[in-house]
């Protein structure tokens, strides 16, 4: 039996405000994006995954970046228009108290990071990936400092996800029960000002809660005392988001994949597309708008292995079980505990991207068959009503 252990000195890793809580709960800690993070607790990835879908999972995602973007003019519309220079997203049309998904693009149409953009009344709050947060802040400063102030917040971030999340959080903040999917509000929890969004990265109903760093442990402890709430590690976070068909930055999307190749056209609202009132004007717009019009040579798709063997990230994909040249590769893959079978996503040549097309992955020198399948693999439970 072999397991690779990364040679990283834990003393060099950053810690979140919940580090001691993780240790106290028996977490197995691993290096992730420069942080010492819990990959799982005693019950393990499989049971943590299933617990989140049947009750409520509490995740520490404090390693993620929280960045405030505020226009020097004081008008949030100016901050929104400034941000639109860096994302192919309708930020100006975002209503107060709402958030939406976005992407920072580069000049080649690739993706520098994916993020959530929240309209906070007089400013925008951006939630970005841990591994990209310093680069994102620098990118914002380099391009928007003339009109905006950019402030990286030193706050904790908790995610509470699953069917028991609403009832649990309502015990501490009753107003959260009235929130709809993608709402954002400032609410007091245990005496601290928190920013709550009804969103997440699991396909479940749930919330993400930005707390002051020094309040994170008491809020997490209070949530853990409520019915159905258990700590869940990054291992299950990954299998949950894969079942939900969501991209992991650095695996499924990166600087070499465009939003169109990644099947993220839905994140580019019509107002930013050709013919829209604010078409283009973001890095790589010529390439991305051309791809919207003419298509791409490859596409991100869901993949369903026919057998029981998981097909994991990096596996090469082929059009048949003999051809020597690959038509794509798997970018995320593993076992989906809720669907009780292996699942994957990856890029394939566009001619192989239609549902039910059979492709083959090379795993341990064998070709295993997979079917192209729509995502998500589970039915999302968002509270849209």
């Amino acid at each position, binding site marked *: *039996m072999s397991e690779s252990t990364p040679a990283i000195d834990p003393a060099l890793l950053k810690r979140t405000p919940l580090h001691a809580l993780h240790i106290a709960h028996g977490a197995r800690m691993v290096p992730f994006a420069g942080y010492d993070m819990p990959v799982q607790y005693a019950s393990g*990835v499989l049971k943590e995954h299933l617990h989140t879908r049947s009750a409520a999972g509490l995740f520490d995602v404090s390693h993620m970046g929280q960045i405030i973007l505020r226009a020097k003019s004081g008008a949030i519309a100016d901050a929104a228009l400034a941000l639109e220079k860096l994302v192919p997203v309708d930020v100006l049309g975002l209503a107060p108290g709402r958030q939406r998904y976005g992407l920072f693009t580069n000049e080649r149409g690739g993706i520098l990071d994916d993020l959530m953009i929240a309209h906070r009344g007089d400013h925008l709050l951006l939630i970005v990936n841990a591994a990209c947060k310093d680069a994102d802040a620098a990118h914002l400063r380099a391009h928007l400092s003339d009109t905006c102030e950019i402030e990286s917040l030193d706050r904790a971030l908790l995610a509470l996800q699953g069917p028991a999340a609403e009832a649990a959080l309502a015990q501490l903040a009753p107003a959260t029960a009235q929130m709809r999917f993608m709402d954002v509000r400032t609410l007091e929890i245990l005496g601290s000002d928190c920013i709550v969004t009804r969103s997440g990265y699991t396909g479940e109903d749930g919330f993400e809660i930005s707390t002051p760093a020094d309040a994170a442990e008491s809020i997490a402890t209070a949530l853990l005392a409520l019915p159905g709430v258990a700590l869940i590690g990054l291992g299950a976070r990954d*299998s949950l988001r894969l079942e939900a068909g969501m991209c992991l930055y650095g695996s499924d999307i990166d600087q070499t994949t465009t939003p169109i190749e990644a099947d993220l056209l839905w994140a580019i609202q019509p107002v930013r597309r050709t013919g829209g009132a604010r078409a283009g004007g973001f890095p790589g717009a010529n390439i991305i708008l051309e791809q919207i019009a003419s298509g791409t040579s490859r596409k991100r798709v869901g993949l369903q292995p026919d057998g029981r063997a*998981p097909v994991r990230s990096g596996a090469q994909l082929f059009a048949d079980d003999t051809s020597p040249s690959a038509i794509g590769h798997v970018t995320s893959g*593993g*076992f989906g505990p809720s669907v009780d079978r292996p699942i994957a996503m990856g890029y394939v040549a566009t001619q192989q991207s239609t549902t039910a097309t059979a492709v083959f992955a090379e795993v*341990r020198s064998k070709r295993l068959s997979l079917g192209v399948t729509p995502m998500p693999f589970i039915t999302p439970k968002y509270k849209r009503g």
Partner: protein
Amino acid sequence: MKFTEEHEWLTLDGSIATVGITEHASTQLGDLVFVELPKVGTALTKGNGAAVVESVKAASDVYAPLDGEVVEVNDAVAADPALVNSDPLGKGWLYKIKLANRADFDALLDDDAYKKLIG
């Protein structure tokens, strides 16, 4: 029962060794969701991959603990990988090999030495 530094256990019946992974290994790996076993008749060389066990997160090789030929595999764990977690030293055995050199078995770690290894 004997053990390897790669966290396999072996029991011997004549020249046939039964091979599985230790409780320590099964705990470290977490709940298994897939087990790939060698084919009966495969000639195994000590240190080469013999089986693959996969959790939600990762695939891990199980190395051949000794030289020998696979004479039987546990189809029950292929059908229900959770057996390896629930009963790693019993119903969760992986395969049986006819040892090339019976004496190799004696050189493996005994219970005390393995317990020392895993601390």
